[in-house]
């Protein structure tokens, strides 16, 4: 194969992009019919590179060649026309349309001015069979699971005639079993002569599926076209981060007998009356980190919001250090020492336009040192922001810059620092290390360990199973709003946990409560 | 010091502007000018909201002004009012005209009464007219107030409506619910009852409530209201709704019923030409006459301060006969007119 013209060749791509890591002089060659993995840390510049290839952004320098021809994409439509398709990390599907309708949306086959559904259905059936993408074209997308939705996305791209598929972190939303299925699909696609560019930072996956691996770090390519058979995951990790990966782990147990949070038979209903959190009972003791594993969308967000008072509990009680706080408003809970690291830091954790010191006050705007009576204590808030910036290593030139000017990791460190101040007694941490660099990740783990040792009770929610297993004293599995299993983080493997999360093998290492 | 400073500021900005676009030609603004230029008159007229083109009250004043220009060959200037402005704005508008050397100055509409009373004191050499002077009272030796007995004219068209109605039901549509329009309504109803005691006058419909003055402007509102009254079996409808009345006339005309116009003789109004044969008559309020009389008196030096009443006795109000629709009842109407002039009939104003 390598003797042929490569499917895609990027040469000296440079993209200057304010504030975040730019692409600097990146070379990348992808041969026809291979699964090529592009690895790198979050923020290393993978997404930017792919946006350039997909025509969403223009490179400042460098050239793109498709099948040996130099091209210049102004919009994704240009890229699609040249046979490039992209499957985004976040699906872009219309829930209330069928698979068929979603696939042809925007590229409808017409016959005598009307949409020719039969032809489309036939074509989709053919493609499903050819590539092993089993999806019934006539079901509504809203009834599909995550894995199926992803297949619909792939079908959508193939339907438009893509020869090169870009998959942006396709496994981030999948449980291990679904990942295996996806990889099966990728191999079939390859067998049919398609080229796959696979973006990931999960080393095992990369090693198991890729034919060639390229690594970028800090916006530049550090290794291209590595052979997965000749490289170890350790070496790959070192290439990615420039040093070895930290691992999440807890040392000796600090769990005490004091129950800080006692959730009893908590149920939260949707406006339609369907339970999204269903009869959940949970205890967190001081000095304990309780992990909650589950595929996204199984009630974690609603549970957290109910605990924070953002959403009201329909039945059940929440007891916090002896007080029944079920009907307390959010502010009273916060004042009582419940800290909150929200899962979406841009929407819930920060006011992006606000200066750092104003963001430091957020969630603590009734507490010292931020306020004195009804008045804002600017001096106090600013001094304490400086303290957090220094103690939590928030990389910023000052505390007057808006939060939007900081990188994601530094934003997250600011949030963690803020939530850790004021001696909280319970921390609800949702995805505390999502999307941040390795250094910051290790630092945040360390803060959690320290706070735990100081007697903090923590509810940890994460999509990173290693983090969950490594950082939890107790680990629950949530499925469709119910706690279905309690596993021992000391013995469980990510695969077993993944099975439990999909409800497949709840006996694997699990012990019902 | 402050005079000097201001002047220098103005000169500075002016110079900058001139420099930036000195190539532009066009009309030059005339500035300044004394207040007592006795030889040539320049008439300044400040409109009420609506301004020229309202098809009604303001247009009537404009017609007077146009006649002044033509017949007396006098230079004129007009300025419109803004909706929802306080008295202070009217004062400053009048003051602007006075300082620019306009004399005489006319304020159209009762809202100008207070402002003219105040401003006139500061410009004793300038003559002022208030059309529709409020309470028919003005102050100062250089102010004339023109007031109109709209209720008298309305009485006559009310009588005409009652006499011409076949269904025995007639209607009234007022523009905005203000006391001025109540006068029209009161006269109309009294006239109808006097001509035909058994007549049914539908409850008056007002298009809008103040401060929403759309009821004098928006024909769509008139159309709606007219439909409503037609549905209630009215076959003659009188509108006192300014521009909105165009909608009334067109709707009533399209239904082959009779409409009564207001302020000017609306039979000749281009906007209602297709249905003009359905216009029974119009209640004529000679605002144009008051404007012309005033300017003429100033130019001839016969100006007299105080108030001047325009009513049936001096034909300051009346009814139009264009189209000949009221020819057969003219005798009756003229009898009513004579009775009102002689004081035999007292027309209510509210």
């Amino acid at each position, binding site marked *: 194969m390598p003797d042929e013209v490569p499917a895609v060749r990027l040469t000296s791509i440079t993209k200057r992009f304010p504030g975040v890591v730019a692409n600097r002089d990146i070379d990348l060659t992808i041969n026809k019919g291979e699964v090529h993995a592009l690895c790198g840390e979050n923020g290393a510049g993978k997404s930017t590179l792919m946006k350039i290839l997909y025509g969403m952004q223009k490179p400042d320098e460098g050239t793109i060649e498709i099948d040996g021809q130099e091209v210049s994409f102004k919009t994704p439509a240009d890229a699609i026309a040249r046979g490039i398709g992209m499957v985004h990390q976040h699906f872009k599907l219309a829930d209330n349309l069928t698979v068929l309708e979603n696939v042809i949306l925007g590229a409808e086959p017409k016959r005598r001015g009307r949409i020719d559904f039969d032809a489309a259905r036939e074509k989709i059936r053919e493609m499903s069979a050819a590539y092993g993408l089993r999806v019934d074209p006539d079901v509504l997308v809203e009834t599909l699971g995550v894995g199926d939705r992803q297949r619909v996305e792939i079908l959508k791209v193939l339907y438009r005639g893509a020869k090169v598929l870009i998959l942006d972190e396709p496994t981030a939303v999948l449980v291990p079993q679904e990942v295996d299925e996806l990889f099966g699909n990728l191999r079939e696609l390859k067998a049919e002569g398609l080229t796959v560019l696979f973006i990931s930072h999960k080393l095992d996956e990369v090693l198991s599926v890729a034919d060639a691996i390229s690594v970028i770090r800090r916006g530049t390519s550090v290794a291209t076209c590595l052979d997965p058979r000749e490289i170890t995951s350790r070496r790959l990790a070192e290439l990615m981060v420039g040093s070895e990966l930290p691992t999440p782990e807890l040392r000796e147990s600090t769990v005490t007998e004091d129950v800080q949070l006692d959730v009893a038979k908590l149920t939260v209903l949707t406006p339609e009356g369907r339970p999204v959190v269903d009869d959940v009972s949970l205890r967190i003791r001081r000095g304990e980190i309780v992990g909650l594993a589950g595929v996204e969308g199984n009630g974690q967000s609603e549970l957290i919001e109910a605990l924070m008072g953002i959403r009201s509990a329909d039945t059940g009680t929440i007891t916090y250090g002896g007080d029944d706080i079920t009907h307390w408003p959010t502010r009273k809970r916060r004042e009582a020492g419940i800290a909150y690291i929200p899962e979406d830091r841009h929407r819930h954790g920060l006011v992006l336009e606000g200066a750092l010191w104003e963001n430091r006050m957020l969630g603590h705007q009734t507490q010292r040192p931020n306020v004195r009576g009804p008045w804002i204590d600017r001096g106090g808030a600013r001094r304490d922001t400086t303290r957090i910036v220094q103690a939590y290593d928030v990389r910023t030139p000052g505390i007057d810059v808006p939060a939007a000017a900081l990188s994601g990791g530094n934003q997250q460190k600011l949030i963690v620092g803020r939530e850790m101040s004021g001696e909280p007694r319970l921390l609800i941490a949702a995805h505390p290390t999502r999307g941040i660099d390795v250094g910051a990740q290790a630092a945040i783990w360390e803060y959690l360990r320290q706070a735990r040792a100081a007697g903090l009770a923590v509810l940890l929610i994460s999509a990173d199973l290693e983090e969950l297993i490594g950082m939890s004293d107790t680990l629950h599995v949530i499925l469709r709003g119910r706690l279905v299993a309690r596993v021992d983080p000391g013995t469980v493997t990510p695969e077993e946990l993944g099975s439990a999360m999909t409800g497949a093998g709840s006996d694997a290492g699990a012990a019902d409560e | 010091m402050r005079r000097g400073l201001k002047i220098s500021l103005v000169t500075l900005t002016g110079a900058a502007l001139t420099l930036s676009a000195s190539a532009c030609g*066009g009309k030059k603004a005339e500035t300044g000018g004394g207040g007592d230029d006795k030889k040539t008159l320049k008439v300044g007229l400040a409109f009420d909201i609506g301004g020229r083109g309202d098809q009604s009250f303001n247009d009537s004043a404009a017609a007077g002004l146009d006649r002044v220009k033509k017949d007396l060959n006098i230079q004129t200037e007009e300025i419109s009012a803004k909706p929802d402005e306080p008295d202070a704005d009217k004062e400053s508008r009048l003051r602007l005209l006075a300082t620019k050397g306009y004399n005489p100055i006319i304020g159209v509409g009762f809202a100008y009464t207070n402002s003219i009373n105040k401003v006139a004191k500061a410009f004793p050499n300038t003559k002022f007219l208030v059309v529709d002077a409020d309470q028919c009272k003005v102050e100062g030796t250089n102010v004339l107030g023109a007031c109109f007995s709209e209720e008298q004219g309305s009485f006559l068209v009310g009588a005409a409506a009652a006499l011409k109605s076949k269904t025995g039901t007639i209607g009234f549509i007022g523009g905005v619910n203000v006391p001025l329009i109540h006068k029209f309504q009161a006269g109309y109803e009294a006239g109808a009852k006097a001509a035909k005691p058994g007549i049914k006058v539908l409850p008056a419909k007002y298009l809008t409530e103040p401060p929403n003055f759309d009821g004098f402007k928006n024909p769509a509102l008139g159309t709606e209201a007219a439909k409503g009254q037609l549905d209630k079996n009215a076959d003659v409808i009188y509108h006192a709704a300014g521009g909105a009345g165009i909608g009334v006339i067109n709707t009533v005309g399209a239904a082959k019923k009779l409409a009564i116009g207001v302020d000017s003789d609306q039979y000749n109004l281009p906007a209602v030409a297709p249905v003009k044969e359905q216009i029974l008559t119009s209640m004529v309020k000679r605002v144009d006459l008051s404007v012309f009389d005033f300017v003429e008196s100033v130019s001839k030096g016969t100006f007299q301060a105080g108030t001047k009443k325009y009513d049936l006795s001096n034909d300051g109000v009346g009814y139009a006969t264009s189209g000949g629709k009221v020819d057969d009842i003219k005798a009756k109407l003229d009898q009513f007119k004579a009775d009102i002039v002689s004081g035999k009939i007292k027309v209510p104003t509210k």
Partner: protein
Amino acid sequence: MSEPQETPKTAPAPAGGGSPEHVPAWQAILRGLGPRGWALRLGAPVLALVISLVITMILLRVTGADPVSSIQSMIDYGTTDSSIVDILNRATRYYLSAVAVAIGFRMALLNIGVDGQYRLAAFLAAALGGALTLPAPFGQMLVIVAAMLIGGLWAAIAGILKVTRGVSEVLSTIMLNAIATGVIAYLLNDKRLAEVRPGSNNVATAQIPESGRVGPFNGALNSIFSGPVLWVILVAGAAAIVYLSYRKQVAAGEPGKSPVAGLVLGVIGAAVFVAVTALVVGPILTDLPGEVYGLLPMAVVVGIVFWVVINFTRFGFDLKVSGLSPTAAQASGVSAKRMVVITMIASGAVAGLIGMPELLGASYEYSLNFPAGLGFTGITVALLGRNHPFGIALAALLFAFLDQTSDVLQEVDVPKEIVGVMQGVVVLTVVIVYELVRRWEIRLQQRTVAAELATGHDLAKGAA
């Protein structure tokens, strides 16, 4: 959230640890005046105004008028003494209205009902003031408090509907405007709360008695801007500016602030203040003919209270955060419902004040001639003033100037509608320019942050 940001970054002199890099004061001043500081804050509106002036002049040219002489005559007329009085009074009304709107805007609450709120408040307060005779300060206070209460209550209806029934405040306030119009029309009747003088075409509430009125402000202005009072103001103001500027630079003992730069900036600011006050504002505001609203200072107080509340109180912080990110506000413990109701009430209470200067200082009655539609002007003025108390003041003055001088345009045969077009152009240009500048500023900040971090200017490291 850009309220008086601390004076921007200056010298990057790490306090401890690293070698203290000395940056000369002049450089710090330049940086302070640099892109992230005053230049953008002042430059953006100036740029917008220049652009809109150019557009306006082109429009004037297109309509066949001479743009230079038209604008010249506007300036001539707008700077006459009697115009200045009218402009001040007009700006007072616009200002209060815009602040009322801005309070809602600050938390992304669109109170379109300011118009109905102030009219209803002014009307009922006028009826109350006309019916009672109280000794001097009590009558005025009663009327003002009543107006605030009525405005607040009327606005509260929309707030309560929003939090209990999810009714958009835009819709409910528009409808409440119509209802207010109806209520006033019903009550403004000689059988109810109003009286009609015989033969009059007007209908009005009873006149507020002499003792309940507020006299003109001219006398106070004359004494403020002359003699010893002026000297006190000049000295105190200059000293305060120097001190505040100095303190900002050394605030909280953060590294990277140069006290010398603060002093120099302060002195420059003080000099400008003294010059403008003594040489421009003072002469313009003394010996004015006509009557400046006696309640003009009330508008100033409202502006100051608004500024203090927004920037220095917990409530203001909650309000700002709710506006910038409702989701983050909720997660931080702000009760959205409570904020909506309180904000609507506050907005309505300020709306209640809009009619007070006119009512107590000029008309003494609510009649058909009472100025209406100010609530809508307020929306534009608030937009133009970027919801900032000081910006709104400038915007109100600009709009007042344009409205005041629209009459003179007719005198030179330019349709007065061109002023409406001008105002539209100004607002559009300002909004667009601000948005562009804001985006550019964020990008610039991100770049600066990256650059400063790359060159080792890192607060986190500074202490390490």
